[in-house]
């Protein structure tokens, strides 16, 4: 639902970094996206195709690396991937947890020529 603004940022970052590197074309954009982030790769791709049209990023491949959710138990410090929506710790069954990984959304690298 809110991928348009995000994709604009992705295109802007890619264009400026490519320009800084004095390259002429963006071949691939490597994105890291957490499982808990509310962003949908297919939507980003859809907007990207339209926003990158007639730029040096047109036709670039978007590569998404998904980061699985990792939670940390506040009780016993166990780090775990939740198996259900209740987010309970598999070691001590505690339900007081914090997010360790899974909210990321960043451009990791670009491939340019």
């Amino acid at each position, binding site marked *: 639902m809110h991928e348009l603004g995000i994709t604009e940022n992705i295109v802007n970052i890619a264009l400026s970094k*490519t320009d800084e590197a004095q390259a002429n074309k963006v071949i691939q954009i490597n994105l890291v996206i957490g499982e808990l982030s509310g962003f949908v790769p297919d939507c980003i791709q859809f907007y990207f195709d339209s926003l990158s049209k007639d730029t040096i990023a047109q036709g670039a491949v978007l590569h998404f690396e998904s980061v699985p959710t990792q939670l940390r138990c506040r009780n016993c410090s166990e780090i775990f991937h939740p198996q259900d929506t209740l*987010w309970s710790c598999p070691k001590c069954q505690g339900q007081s947890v914090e997010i360790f990984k899974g909210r990321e959304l960043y451009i990791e690298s670009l491939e340019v020529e």
Partner: protein
Amino acid sequence: MKRIEVIQNVLEANETIANRNRQLLDKHKVFAINIMSAPGAGKTSLILRILKSLKGKLNIAIIEGDVASTVDAEKVQSEAKAVVQINTRNMPESCSLMAAMIESALKDMPLDDIDLLLIENVGNLICPSEFTLGEHKRVVISSLPEGDDKPTKYPLIFIDADAVVINKIDLLPHVDFDIAAFLHSIAGLNPKAKVFQLSCKTGEGIERWCSWILEQTKNNTTRQ
């Protein structure tokens, strides 16, 4: 072909503007609260209660975020120092307020005359959790008819909340809402969140809630 390391947060553009908003608000000693909930949980009713209860104590301004209409702005108009309605229908994103929308709304506000800014976000439990606006506190409202499982289904918005309001508490005898289960979920996800149980309809719990708002706003002013 060449590889360029980037490592740049895609949400950085929003965060940069949010920080700018925060600096502007701090400069004018305005305390800002971002109020988020599902549609119909009672954001506008809660704002009306705050306006009524803190009248004469604080000068309050409102930013109303809705996909369309000025219905909510009209409701709060008479009691607020200033009201700006943002309609997100024609914006790049319609599902949440974003820092840039707040930045332009602040241009229309007499900031020196305002102590407290209440920002009513678009009714949605998903998108607003991704976008900070420059607010000092984030408040999430859950209402009894929505069910007690919302923190489990939409954890992110609850994890980042400074306060959680349980509204429509007067409906407790009529709906299957397990308060203990809800509180247990919040305590697990976000032990630091303050929880308020209240009813905008009957007024139950409003006094405690408004005292908290008053205290937070005053702390902010004396801090600077």
